[in-house]
């Protein structure tokens, strides 16, 4: 079933939308939002292609929700531009932007049935009678809730309510769908199920999606690209793989996945930088262009899976604690004055690491990155 063949009044996005088939490119240029003296969003620039699924990822207070609210038109930016398909929309009131929006609290109208809820945006666009009915039926089918139209929101489970909210936000075929922690109120299993459904629906309807979440796993598994925010600043925007393998800042390196940080001394010579850790007795040489700090102290970041451990009675490193998770074993190792977490794959027949065991620590230099010391 394809929704894009249905007719919706062009009033839908009057004034902001172009009639091109590839609508929904969004760009944000140097956007800033001040709350008093506090910069909730600080000079963020981001450009999103039509049909792209972008996650805004950050902890609470990172500015991700404020950024979304500015795009939705519920917060007024302090400076900077918000562009939709090349048109500046900062001054367009939210109800004329024509974006779909899904809220964490579902925000279904409790005094209307499911069908009335979904019909709401259609009626605001002047649709009447049979057209409305047809669209509502299609939208319910899209979210696999056929036959629920006559019920009230209070008669549905949380997951069902959120699917209704999704149908309501998509029924008028917005060029852009905004989702504010849409799965935050659901339990883990339901969340994973809905993550899949949302990806499928995204493929089907082709709208651009901006999805706010604080759950990195959710962001990495769902989005084409992830924008990581911290304290109002955009840290990095890239594909999940880029974020994991080439984190641009120490924050991203720490926030995405697990990461060990070792204090290192830096020595520059020619086009190369040598990072030396006294604790581990390790020297890593990297191209200067890859090293993101100019001082003589830095942090060497290495993921647990690139730390190799070998049992060795003469070594100085000691296993403190370990956790067995089936295919892997996470091992906490004391090396000199620092502690590192290593993840080793478990192979049948080989013994697991035990607390107190002496081990030799090897770090794969090609999988490390150097960041400024002061994080």
């Amino acid at each position, binding site marked *: 079933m394809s929704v894009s063949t249905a007719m919706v009044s062009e009033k*839908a996005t009057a004034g902001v939308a172009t009639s091109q088939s590839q609508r929904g490119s969004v760009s944000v240029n140097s956007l800033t939002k001040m709350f008093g003296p506090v910069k909730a969003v600080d000079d963020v620039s981001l450009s999103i292609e039509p049909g792209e699924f972008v996650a805004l990822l950050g902890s609470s207070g990172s500015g991700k929700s404020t950024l979304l609210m500015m795009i*939705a*038109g*519920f917060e007024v930016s302090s400076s900077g531009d918000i562009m939709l398909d090349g048109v500046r929309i900062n001054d367009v*009131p*939210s*109800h*004329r*932007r*024509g*974006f*779909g*929006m899904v*809220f964490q*609290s579902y*925000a*279904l*109208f*409790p*005094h209307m049935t499911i069908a009335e809820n979904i019909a*709401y*945006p259609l009626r*605001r*666009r002047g649709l009447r009678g049979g057209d409305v009915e047809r669209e509502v039926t299609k939208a319910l089918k899209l979210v696999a809730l056929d036959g629920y139209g006559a019920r*009230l*929101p*209070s*008669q549905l489970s949380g997951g069902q309510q959120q699917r209704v*909210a999704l149908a*309501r*936000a998509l029924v*008028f075929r917005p060029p852009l769908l*905004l989702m504010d922690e849409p799965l935050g109120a659901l339990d883990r299993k339901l969340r994973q199920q809905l993550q899949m459904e949302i990806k499928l629906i995204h493929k089907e309807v082709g709208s651009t999606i901006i999805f706010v979440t604080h759950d990195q796993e959710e962001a990495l598994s769902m989005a084409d690209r992830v924008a990581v925010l911290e304290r109002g600043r955009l840290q990095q925007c890239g594909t999940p793989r880029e974020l994991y393998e080439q984190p641009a800042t120490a924050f991203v390196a720490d926030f995405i996945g697990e990461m060990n940080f070792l204090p290192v001394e830096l020595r520059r010579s020619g086009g190369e930088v040598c990072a030396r850790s006294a604790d581990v007795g390790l020297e890593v040489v990297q191209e200067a262009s890859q090293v993101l700090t100019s001082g003589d102290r830095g942090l060497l970041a290495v993921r647990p899976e690139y730390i190799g451990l070998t049992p060795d009675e003469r070594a100085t490193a000691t296993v403190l604690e370990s956790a067995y998770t089936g295919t892997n074993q996470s091992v906490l190792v004391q090396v000199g004055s620092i502690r590192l977490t290593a993840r080793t794959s478990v192979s049948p027949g080989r013994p697991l690491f035990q607390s107190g065991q002496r081990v030799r620590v090897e770090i794969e230099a090609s999988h490390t990155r150097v960041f400024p010391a002061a994080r």
Partner: protein
Amino acid sequence: MVPVLLLLPIVILFSVGYVVPLAQLVLKSLQHDGAWSLNSYIEIANSPAFLWIVLRTIALAATVTIVCLLIAYPLAYAISKCSPRAASLLLLIVTLPYLTSVLIRTYAWIVLLSPNGPINQLFLRLGLISEPLQMVFNSVGVYVGMVQVQLPLMVFPLYAVLARVDPSLAKAAQSLGSPPTDAFLRVTLPAAIPGVISGCTLVFLSSLGFYITPELLGGPDSYLIAQGISLRVLILGNFDEAAAQSTILMLTVIAVFLIFRQRIAEELDDRPHDNVSPSGKSSSGLSARWPILERLTAVLHGPSMRLHEALTVVRRPALYVSAGLTLLLLVLPFVVVIPLAFSNAPYLTFPPPAYSLRWFSSLLKNTQWLDALSFSLRWAGLSALLSVAIGVPAAFALVRYRFSARVPVYLLLISPLIVPHVVIAVSLFFALAGSSLIGNPLAFALSYTIIGAPYTVVVMIAGLKRFNRTLELAAASLGSSPLVTLRTVTLPLLLPTLASAALFAFIVGFDDVVFGLFLSGPTATPLPMRMWDNIRLEISPQIAVIAVLFLIVLALLMLLRLFVGAVVQGRRPQQSLHP
């Protein structure tokens, strides 16, 4: 700009009908024979009788406040521990007297406390007394009646804070070694302090200017200040002194009100209320500052813990007995009034010797009563609509917009809840004196709106603060303009709140006696004035009939309100019942 427009109607009406008359009243008190003079105040200050009246009034207000606090706390606490369904039923029982005319309740107390009334009969039969106690037309009657009348004002704020106290706090204290009563003293009680303060403020202020109950239940030698004022205006014609006394009463009330305004203005705050004691000064902090206290606590620790353990055993029964007695006090008037309405006796006697509908038919035959009833219905109804029309936009402005005059405007709009009605009525009487508006229904419409609109403002503010604004954002994201959102989402969901607001405003006007005393005329006599005259002059079962009709109408209105709530809240009545 928008808040100004929203507030304009109510501010204009309040200026004309409330602020200006009160200002004129104050000016009048500062004049004598047309010249500026403190003469009236000097007269008052030199009158020992007036000082006694003031002392008596303050003593009464303070005693009533303390008694209300002591008996309302266990009840509010018990309600807060009930299941939501039981709690909403109990709150309804507390609300019912609050919504029922003070006149009707006072009338019931006259019956209950009279020398041959049921209470004296019960005591005589139990052999507790050998001859009837004189409990009415003296200060005993005033105290009992006042406590019953003011009790709901104490229960509501206490319940509001206690219901918010996280029960796991007390459990946490217990798990850390406090016996339940100790946990109660250290955790639950401090958390209730805001409710205690607002309840005490409300009851004390309201008692200071109370008129009806003292006038009907009290004796001729125990006058209170509000009675003194009306006596001077209506009988003695001593307007200057009345103005001075009114000014003193009003300024006292406003002063107390302003001292506690922080608490009251908090109702406007968006921040979630703290569950924890806002004082921040814990008992351990105190003992840290005074080492002697620390030592004392240590010495007393053992015995105090044993005392707490002992109290723990009687705690629950004591709580339930006390809460039950308080509930009984609240419903007792209705227990008397309902059978009385069906009495066949030609005079007041309880229990009725036999039952008939004679007093119902006598009401229907009496055009004076019917005219008064239709007058009250019409003008209280009109005022309720007007109160909603001006109060609802004001509530929107106060909740949804930030502007510098926000708190002062809010305090002004709710101040008629606090300023004694006697003072407002006297000021209107002076302002309208000589004009054709005395004895004119329009004067009633104006005064009913001034005392009714604050209720609509307060009820709507509470409703708007509870309202989930994400729904409005959702509507906007779906393409709905602000006005369409108001029509399709906000107002339909606030319908139950609007109904409550209108109901409150209506009842406040419909119950009024005080404005009737000053503004009535031959062609404008509201029902409560007829009842007032009847109680004072002949006291017949007629009033009980009106009380029963009133209760029936009230019950119907509440059912309607429940129905509206049920429809709006997704047809789940149990949710709309619970506030």
